[in-house]
């Protein structure tokens, strides 16, 4: 039997997707590092050490993940990435970090079973579509990484509780590695499944995001919703669809990183993430607002930003596949996105703050904040560059770039934004941040430990140290073994 171990594709030729993703990994890690440098020291020295160790190892391992040429080494590096992120999240909240790690271990386990089935059934573990018997395991494993519906339960909590530089990497690149896996997995036959999953994600994420009052949680749900756009691009099942998904992932990683960064700056300044308690940022901190605006426009798909091109690409691929309903659903999700970012801009930056008497504003540390702003500036420039310089993309890009600037396309991009903003200006009260936590699936999955606890407490009762009882169990077991062996004789 062939026992595979790390076969890296470094000496082979990683294809363009790998190279683009690898470059992107390094870019995001460096931006996050710059931001983290400005974000200020963590509470304890040990935490800071953990954080920086995690950050740099994440950079290395995520780079290796996307360069791997077979599923097995991809999974190994993916798991190492999860551990690095665990170290980073540890600085924010220990419980969340543990939950994240356990979830990711479960996902990696499922992937490993998938790979062993792949070895048994098809004999090859090269990256690519897998045989149907292994597919469910891959879907669950990669789904946990890429936060497919139901398997996304860890995402909002992790993204909101992690320290902001870690959220930037989580949203910016960690989930993209799951998407990268799904890109490798996608084929004609998986397309419809991915399409429906994607649409569910896009709509559900937006609805949840509109109900949030915690800035980072809102952004986390938008990550979920935007991943829906990526998945529906994969749902077209064509080469162009894969390219669209890839481009969307890149664009989203950058602008979502930017948005998380601005949320982090606000949190640092006002010591809260609650939209109901924030406000006035536009005067106090115009730079942050301007940079936030770039990100917000990008996520809504405003022409000139990377979001616009990404959304056009997705629409184009769906149009080719004649998925009219899907386009309409994405249109709705677009309106929701515009609404929710109007809300974030208004309540986070424009409105007067409710507690004007008690000023919670912290003393500024301009020198360190500068690094945060520098990181954000780089991300903003990246967003704009991806929007304005579409010709800098790899030459094998199968799309005709001219259609991007047609009137119809501009109109279809602007209309959800306009609709969202209009809706918001007329009914701002409807979207006032409520101070209730809207339940998500996290609760359901946090109950999963119950059966285990129950089972172990039942077992505990039988381990009470009484020798006669133990011997009774032993006797029963002996009888069962005899019966089993003798019965199989007949």
């Amino acid at each position: 039997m062939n026992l595979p171990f790390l076969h890296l594709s470094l000496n082979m030729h990683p294809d363009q997707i790998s190279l683009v993703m690898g470059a992107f990994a390094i870019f995001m890690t460096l931006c996050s590092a710059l931001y983290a440098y400005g974000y200020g020291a963590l509470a304890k020295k040990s935490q800071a050490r953990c954080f920086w160790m995690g950050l740099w190892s994440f950079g290395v391992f995520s780079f290796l993940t996307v360069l791997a040429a077979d599923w097995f080494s991809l999974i190994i590096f993916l798991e190492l990435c999860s551990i690095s992120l665990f170290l980073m999240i540890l600085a924010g909240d220990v419980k969340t970090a543990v939950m994240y790690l356990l979830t990711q271990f479960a996902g990696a386990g499922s992937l490993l079973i998938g790979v062993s089935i792949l070895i048994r059934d098809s004999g090859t573990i090269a990256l690519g579509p897998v045989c149907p018997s292994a597919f469910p395991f891959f879907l669950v494993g990669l789904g946990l990484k890429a936060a497919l519906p139901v398997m996304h339960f860890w995402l909002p909590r992790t993204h909101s509780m992690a320290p902001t530089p870690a959220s930037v990497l989580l949203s910016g690149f960690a989930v993209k590695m799951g998407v990268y896996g799904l890109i490798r997995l996608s084929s004609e036959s998986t397309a419809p499944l991915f399409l429906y999953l994607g649409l569910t994600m896009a709509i559900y994420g937006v609805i949840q995001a509109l109900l949030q009052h915690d800035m980072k949680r809102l952004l986390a749900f938008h990550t979920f919703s935007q991943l829906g756009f990526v998945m529906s691009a994969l749902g077209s099942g064509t080469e162009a669809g894969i390219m669209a998904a890839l481009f969307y992932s890149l664009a989203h990683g950058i602008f979502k990183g930017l948005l998380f960064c601005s949320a982090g700056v606000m949190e640092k300044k006002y010591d809260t993430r609650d939209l109901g308690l924030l406000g006035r940022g536009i005067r106090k901190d115009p730079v942050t607002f301007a940079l936030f605006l770039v990100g917000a426009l990008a996520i809504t798909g405003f022409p000139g930003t990377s979001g616009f091109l990404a959304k056009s690409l997705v629409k184009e691929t769906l149009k080719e596949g004649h998925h009219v309903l899907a386009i309409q659903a994405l249109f709705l999700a677009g309106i929701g996105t515009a609404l929710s970012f109007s809300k974030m801009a208004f309540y986070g930056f424009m409105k007067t703050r409710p507690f004007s008497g008690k000023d919670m504003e912290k003393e500024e540390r301009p020198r360190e904040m500068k690094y945060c702003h520098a990181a954000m500036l780089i991300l903003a420039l990246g967003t704009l560059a991806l929007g304005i310089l579409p010709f800098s993309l790899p030459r094998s890009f199968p799309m005709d770039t001219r259609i991007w600037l047609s009137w119809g396309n501009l109109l279809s991009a602007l209309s959800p934004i306009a609709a969202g903003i209009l809706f918001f200006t007329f009914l701002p009260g409807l979207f006032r941040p409520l101070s209730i936590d809207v339940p998500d699936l996290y609760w359901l999955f946090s109950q999963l430990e119950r059966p285990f606890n129950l089972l172990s407490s039942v077992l505990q009762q039988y381990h009470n140290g009484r020798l006669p009882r133990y011997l009774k169990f032993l006797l029963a077991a002996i009888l069962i073994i005899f019966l089993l062996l003798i019965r199989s004789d007949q």
Partner: protein
Amino acid sequence: MTPVLVILIPLTGAFLLPLLQFLSRKIIVLVVCLAGGLSFLGNIWGACSGWLRPTVHLAGGWPAHIGIALIHDPLSSPFLLLAALGFGSVLICSFDRTEKFSWRFHVLLFLSWAAVNGILSTGDLFNLYVFYEIFSVSAYLLVAFSTMEWQAIEAGFKYLVFGTVGAMFFLFGTTYLFLFTGYLNMARISEALMSEPGLPVFIPAACFFIALSIKTGAFPSHFWLPDAHSSAKSLVSALLSGVLVMVSIYVFIRLFSVVFIVLKPLVFPLMLGTGSLSLLTGHLMALRQDDIKRLLAYSTVAHLGYILIGLGCASAAGFNAAIYHAFNHMAAKMGLFLTAGILASHAGTRKISELSGLGWDLPFVSILFVLFTAVLVGVPPLNGFMSKWYITLACVERNQAIPALLIILGTVISSGYYLRIIRRLFSGKGTQGTSKDRGATWYVVTLMGVLCILLSLLPLFPVFTDTLHILGNWIMDISMYKDLVMIP
């Protein structure tokens, strides 16, 4: 060098020590060191010679079907190596400043070393039984040794009761086979049973299965294990979990792949079931423990489950994976028990909830502790991950979905409970100040860490794959073993 010497050297050590006890302490220490070093070298030599050229020694020159054959073959050699590493490191630990030097302890240690080597060498069933008894008696005493706490004595007593039941079944099975076939030599019995399938084969098979699962501590008879492993001294716990338990795994492989080869399709699924249940029970019980050593003991039950699942696959890949996992478990679990011992003695308690802040006091030991837990949980490039992966692969190859899923579940549960300890270790502030006390245990623990790293690097070399290939072939194809024993 014949297989006899491998048994004789530690046995000589064990018998010399009581005679020399009247001499000065220095001489005793010298004898212990000498006997230990020689036994270590003997084991290594036996392992190498067994691997390169399987050897048979007929005791007293009697032919194999009448006399006792001692065999070193490619199956016994990895276990001889395991025993050498385990006993050697425990011997070094026993010279630690915190341990009270006692020649009685060393007598027991050498006695069990000799018995283990005997079990690994013999090709005769009754001889196996005798060695098993020596082994068990010394293990009972080691558990109850010297601490003179009621816990340790009670644990030793429980172990004794369970072990006696196991020994009874073992003897019963041996007698049955002897009466039925007229042989005690394993290869001969296997040959004789080939032509006689049916009830007569099932009864001794069931007896041996029960006896061995009691001796290993597999699911329904695991009750003695956590008590024994947690109440004993740390170095004894390390020895029990790392080596002594694996000896029974060797006997499992030997008996059921040689003697009861006829029953292969029946017994191995049973092993798979026992393994799965042990895995689940061990992990679930470990989840609730507050005593750090008891937690580790339950984790041993779970890891026995992994190994039994590997065996239960009854394929070359499964056997290889199980043996590889036995090594990884030995290195990591011995390290864990020893580090836990250091931590517990520093804190003055074994309760996990009272270990807070020790990570800052004993940073090196704690980091090693984290490394060992990472090995056992199966964090990717480490050896524990690789062996679990091989076991999963073997399971899937045999279409065994449930054990494969349980392995994954086990990873998740175990990372849960180990993270709890690690969190506790690094929470709060250190109180006692950093300790720079480096005893012998400290060096052994470091050695185990290095061993883990080396074992992790193994799969990178193609030689390792070839080695596993030879091993797997040897276990699967028993005709080679039979030829070896029956020709002379």
